[in-house]
């Protein structure tokens, strides 16, 4: 057996015990009472209060969407994973996207106007991509407060634990990039 066939065989084996894939032919997604997302899977229960979570939010934001619900014991359970959102109807996609929008609240930064260092905190003045509005926030000046986001991006976590994302630091205007990397140099 070549390495490739071994891997394929292994993948097939794992698929039997791995995640359940939700396909449009066997999965119905709709809005029900209290505007809750409902999901009915052929041969399975009807799930209410369903929510969507991205399994690879940075690498594959349109793929591998896990549909989940909270059971009566308050435990989060997975119904299954949608491999590609585009396989589903427009209406279902809209509902899932709305659910994803509820799960992620992140501000995208398009410009870094100024950064000031005081009391061990960094005071940021930035411009947000959404509407080009200016926003001030403060974050602790520590490694934990500026994490990697993909290959070239950064997630800034402010003092309130709100998330601000710079998807690609190298795409900031040169002056902004210099200002940013003077403080967030890691």
């Amino acid at each position: 057996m070549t390495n490739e066939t071994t891997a394929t065989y292994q993948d097939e084996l794992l698929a039997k015990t791995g995640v359940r894939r939700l396909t449009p032919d066997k999965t119905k997604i709709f809005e029900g009472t209290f505007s809750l997302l409902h999901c009915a899977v052929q041969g399975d229960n009807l799930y209410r209060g369903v929510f969507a979570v991205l399994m690879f939010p940075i690498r594959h934001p349109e793929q591998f969407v896990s549909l989940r619900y909270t059971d009566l014991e308050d435990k989060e359970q997975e119904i299954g994973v949608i491999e590609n959102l585009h396989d589903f109807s427009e209406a279902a996609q809209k509902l899932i996207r709305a659910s994803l929008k509820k799960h992620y609240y992140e501000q995208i930064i398009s410009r870094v106007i100024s950064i000031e260092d005081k009391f061990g905190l960094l005071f940021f003045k930035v411009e947000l991509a959404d509407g080009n509005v200016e926003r001030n926030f403060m974050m602790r000046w520590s490694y934990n407060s500026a994490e990697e986001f993909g290959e070239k991006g950064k997630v800034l976590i402010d003092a309130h634990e709100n998330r601000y994302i710079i998807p690609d630091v190298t795409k900031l205007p040169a002056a902004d990039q210099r200002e940013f990397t003077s403080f967030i140099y890691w």
Partner: protein
Amino acid sequence: MSETEGVKDTLLSVDKIPDVIREKALEIGFSDQDHLFSIRADLDLDGKAEAVWLVVGKTHLAAIGLAAIPVMVCAPIEIASIQKVRSSQTVGSAFLQVMVDEAYVDVVRYTNGQRELFSRACLEIKNLVAGKPVHPHALTSPSESFCPKCGLPLPGRKADCPRCKGHGGLFSRTLGLMKPYKWSIALLFLVMLIGVTLDLLPPMLTKMMVDKVFTPSEGTTILSHADSIHLLLVVLMILVGASLGRQLLNILISFITSLIGTRITKELREQLQSKLMGLSVEYYNRHSSGSLMSRVLYDVDYFQSFVAQVAQGFLVNLMLVLGIGAMLFVMNWRLALLVMLPIPFVAIGTTYFWRYIYPRYYRLSDSQSKMYQLLGGLLNGIRLVKVFGQEEREKKRFSDSARYMQDTLRSLQISQGIFNPIMGFIFGLGGLIIWFSGGQMVLEKYITLGTLMAFLGYVGMFYGPISSLTMFSNWLTGFLSAGQRVFEVLDSHSFLQRTKDPIRMPKIEGGIELRNVVFGYDPYTPVLKGVSMKIEPGQFVGIVGKSGSGKTTLVNLICRFYDAHEGQVLLDGVDVRKISEEDLHRQVGLVLQEPFLFRANIAQNIAYGRPDAGALAIMNAAKSANAHDFIARRTSSYDTMLGENGAGLSGGERQRISIARALLCNPRILILDEATSSVDTESEQEIQKALSVVCKERTTIAIAHRLSTLKNADVIFVFDDGHIAESGTHDDLMTKQGIYHKLVMIQTKLTRLET
């Protein structure tokens, strides 16, 4: 900047609800009499920044958005129909949800900045649903994470505000550290003053030599050849003396600065280490050990260089600039003004250089630290790399990291390579201007050649200190950030609250009681949700439950690594918060799943908690823990030096040493947190054999996944999602046919499969 943004401004009392919201609330069935509290959330359910009001009445709750016209975000829900209430955290925001008809419904959404407020609201709504009294004033009590005065985030819960506490400026605090050395500093200052005076001497002597010996000008006495040679020798001797004196003073300056600097850093390191030992476990959850090590090892070094920079850099340069400047103006003010011409270019050039190049120094240090981390990971996990055949990939990763460092270093060196010649050119230009103007003055006999030579000598000494002074502010920036990090640890208040008069308990009986304990590592997400339990002295107690159910958290509270947010943990009826720490830690022994052994010999590891223990006591503890025989088989027995974290011993052996370590302290309460789960069956049997003997006469709490080890427990508590779901003896729980029974059945099946 919104420095004052905090929890405080998100809280509004009931009477401050906007009229439109009140009217809308009245319209949908609320009444002023029915109303309990209302709070403003900062997002609508779709995540748009909108003010949405959560209105809670005695019989209903609802959410109303404050758009152009009030909109219903969540229609009124009857309190009686609510089954559960929770605050559900998502990525970057959270929802207050209520369970109605067995499904959670979103009521309001808020950003993480409002988590504290809404977790309190959630608690009050839970009280309301459970028919308990509601305390709306709890919503407006001060935040524990933000300064109630200025809203600045605190370094830890209940810690002092870095702004309001007013520790004084970093600079003055650093100077304060030097107070004990004030006489040495005064001497240093005097020595520097003499040194600078000596520095100013050579150009003046050059002037004398040129004007009196080589080119005596008209009107001056012309010396005979012998007198000229004599004067030349005298001047040269003075120059040699000045140079020698300067070097001796330099040695003295280095000696004093090094004495002060090294002492300050030593004292600071000791203070930091002592502080770190006193900080609670919670502090270590928030700070990586790497960052703390870097503060103790590297950031402290800035304080030594602070002394050197201030003494040998800033002060010397300042004195030189002032002294030389004065000499230049005294000699010829017109030429002196020309000397000042390049200064703006030097200042601008240096500022530009540091502003744009200095961050590259940060990056260089980052690239080095990333490379160290990568290499460290590789060496620690070398077996894993080999077993998965990933050597080539790791080579590439390391090569990428090395390239990053190379690029950073190259870019830094190129920048320096360009900057230094440019500055050199500007300095040279300054000299050329003096050559030109001064030369003209000499030709016009306006000044002597000696004056020009002295002038050029001073100019050569003038620009260097100017450039250094400009760079000093940038160096200071680096020092300030390092100093900030050091003082942040020193000012940290993450210890557990210490009672003023701790109760001494030299001999704990071993009775443990938890009364309605609520605790979570994240204060808004409780892990233990109202746990009550009682353990009698001397009992052998088993704790069972899935991962994340709260078992280890229970141990953390009994050991008082953390304090419960609500409720009480009592030992022999006394709240652990009131017991003397020394008595508590001496009498509670803990054996963890992953035992930690120090780089020391076996005997020292066993006697870690009792360094004065004699050889016999150590052997007895080892024998009781079934460790004696394998230790005896080692070439150096108890004197065998162990590698990093017990390298050279098997998992079972390490575990038995850690049990011996716990036993040597003869703890009244012995906690075994999965102590045998990572060892093989044979080792486990040996450890169990040891434990069955040593657990007698003390309270023992054993957390275990292998339920067979708990069969003889006096009582078993089954944890599930932060609650005690079941309790009783093995037989009781088997009869109950609940969670424990299910777990035993699963394990029995697995054992059958294995055999």
